[in-house]
């Protein structure tokens, strides 16, 4: 076992009756990394997490943590702890006893138990909250208690099932930063389930994108965004424009209405490919630029720091999404619907994907 496959998911399939929730998943999670399982609801990410926790057992395949097989190990004997989506704070216990729950079994001395719980309370910045009843806590505080209750057991792996989903936007953003800092300071491997791509991109060391029970791509956030390996990943992470392409030469693709695109391709000349271009890679100009494509603005959306434009180009029915940073103050000017614009992008801005 190396640190590379601290957690190993080996050809795991989970069926519920006729439904395949997880389909032949292979995954290695590194020691100490912040790893996210990202995908739309029903993609199997929570089922995969619950199999690591021990609440579901694989129909096929094996699970290993630190080289030890845990495929059939019941949850109470696994080296992981979980933060539940609903937090699952025990309503009949106060904050102190909730956090101490996993420590009671360890038969610690009373003073040591209290010391560890108080350290945990300090870690989540809820000192003095020990005697509080849980129904006196806010959503954010409950979330912290759930986190402390799991971390106080010093697990090898912390599993988090959409823990920020129930919080409002501002609180969620501050918790994202806090959670990330906490993970770095405790050095525990985090496996984080989310359907929020921005959350996954901003927090994770690496992300596995899942869809219909399959793991589509495992990569660092930057790579996932810039070099998606298939249409589904490109489409799920951010916005993207697709063009049908025909391979002309190993580094040249004919993308129809937007002309030829230069990008490395393994397909042989004559083959079909999919050209994907992110909206923010496209530069809009009001005046003609050599090599640019002429288009017409259909709609604009001003979002403060950036604007979204919908641009129609000749020879293509579907308009193109373009996004531009509002680096300069644009009070009166800017592109308006009906304006003629010129679209251009840097060489290598486009990504070639296999056709499905």
């Amino acid at each position, binding site marked *: 076992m190396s640190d590379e496959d601290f957690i190993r998911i080996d050809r795991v399939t989970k069926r519920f009756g006729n439904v395949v929730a997880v389909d032949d998943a292979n995954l290695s999670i590194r020691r100490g990394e912040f790893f996210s399982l990202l995908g739309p609801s029903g993609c199997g990410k929570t089922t995969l997490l619950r199999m690591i*926790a*021990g609440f579901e057992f694989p129909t096929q395949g094996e699970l290993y943590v630190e080289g030890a097989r845990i495929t059939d190990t019941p949850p109470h004997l696994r080296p992981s702890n979980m933060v539940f989506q*609903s937090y*699952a704070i025990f*309503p009949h216990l*106060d904050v102190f*006893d909730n956090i101490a729950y*996993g420590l009671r079994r360890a038969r610690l001395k009373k003073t040591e138990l209290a010391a560890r719980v*108080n350290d945990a309370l300090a870690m989540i910045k809820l000192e003095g909250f020990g005697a509080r*009843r849980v129904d006196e806590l806010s959503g954010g505080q409950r979330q912290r208690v759930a986190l402390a209750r799991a971390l106080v057991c010093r697990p090898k792996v912390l599993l988090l099932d959409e823990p920020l989903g129930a919080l409002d936007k501002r609180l969620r953003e501050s918790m994202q930063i806090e959670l990330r800092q906490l993970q770095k300071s405790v050095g525990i491997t985090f496996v984080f389930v989310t359907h929020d791509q921005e959350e996954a991109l901003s927090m994770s060391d690496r992300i596995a994108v899942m869809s219909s029970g399959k793991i589509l791509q495992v990569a660092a956030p930057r790579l996932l965004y810039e070099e998606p390996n298939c249409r589904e990943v490109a489409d799920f992470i951010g916005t993207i424009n697709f063009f049908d392409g025909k391979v002309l030469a190993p580094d040249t693709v004919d993308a129809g209405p937007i002309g030829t695109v230069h990008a490395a391709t393994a397909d042989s000349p004559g083959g079909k490919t999919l050209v994907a271009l992110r909206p923010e890679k496209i530069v809009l100009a009001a005046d003609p630029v050599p090599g640019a494509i002429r288009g017409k603005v259909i709609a604009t959306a001003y979002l403060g720091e950036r604007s979204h434009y919908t641009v129609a180009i000749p020879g293509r029915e579907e308009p193109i999404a373009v996004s531009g940073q509002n680096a300069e103050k644009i009070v009166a000017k800017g592109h308006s619907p009906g304006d003629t614009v010129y679209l251009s992008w840097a060489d290598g801005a486009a990504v070639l994907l296999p056709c499905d």
Partner: protein
Amino acid sequence: MRTGAGRGGVGLLAYAIFYLGFLYVPVLFLPLFSFNDSVFITFPIAGFTTQWYRQMLEDSAMLRALANSLEVGAITAVLSTILGLLAAKALTRYRVPGGNALLAFTSLPLFIPDIVLGISILILLNTLGVPLSLITVIAGHSLICVPFAITVLMSRFDGFDKSLEEASLDLGENGWMTFWRVTYPLALPGIISSLLLTFIVSFDEFLIAYFLAGSDATLPIYIWGQLRFPYKLPAVLALGALILVASTILVVIAEWVRSHGMKDRHKMVGA
């Protein structure tokens, strides 16, 4: 509009008073006539006496019937609540194949007339050669009490998050300790309700007990037997009045436990 609503309010109030009166005034006759110095249950009241209470305490057959009923009721309540607890947990927490059909099947005794149940169990016991006793009454009562227990406990289990039990397992407790540290305290109000309900159902059940009791009478059977002797009726009223007081106290205690139990536990624990 407001006066219209006011008239409606008066009407509803009158209805509520009449309803409660209809419900409770007959019950209040029980203690009233139990202190009445006459064998006949008629107005006007003849005078105050405690002789019926004395007579009741001296009636060893009646006291034995009472003891039998308490015993049958207590054992039935515990037994059916345990069985109900297991069934309710299985039906709400696990994927049980054919769970709904199973639930409908266990609820069937609620819909079969007790007289039919009583006769069929009697025939079965006779065929098997099982002698009739309080044990057979307990068996029959448990049959009709388990559906009540399941219903009460299932609604309680549905009322709290399944992931609480998963959280306990995740924090290192096995299934048994998870039951004691999480499931049991959270289900306790339901368990108490179930114990009370099944006890009451068993305590005043007549038909099945009548068929299955053999020579040991439960209280309803004994009272039924005494109705032939008018002079024994006032003592029955005295006993009824005492049972009324006891059950009122029981319900008040149960309600108090239910609403205060949780809060008190919170104040006691903590650093």
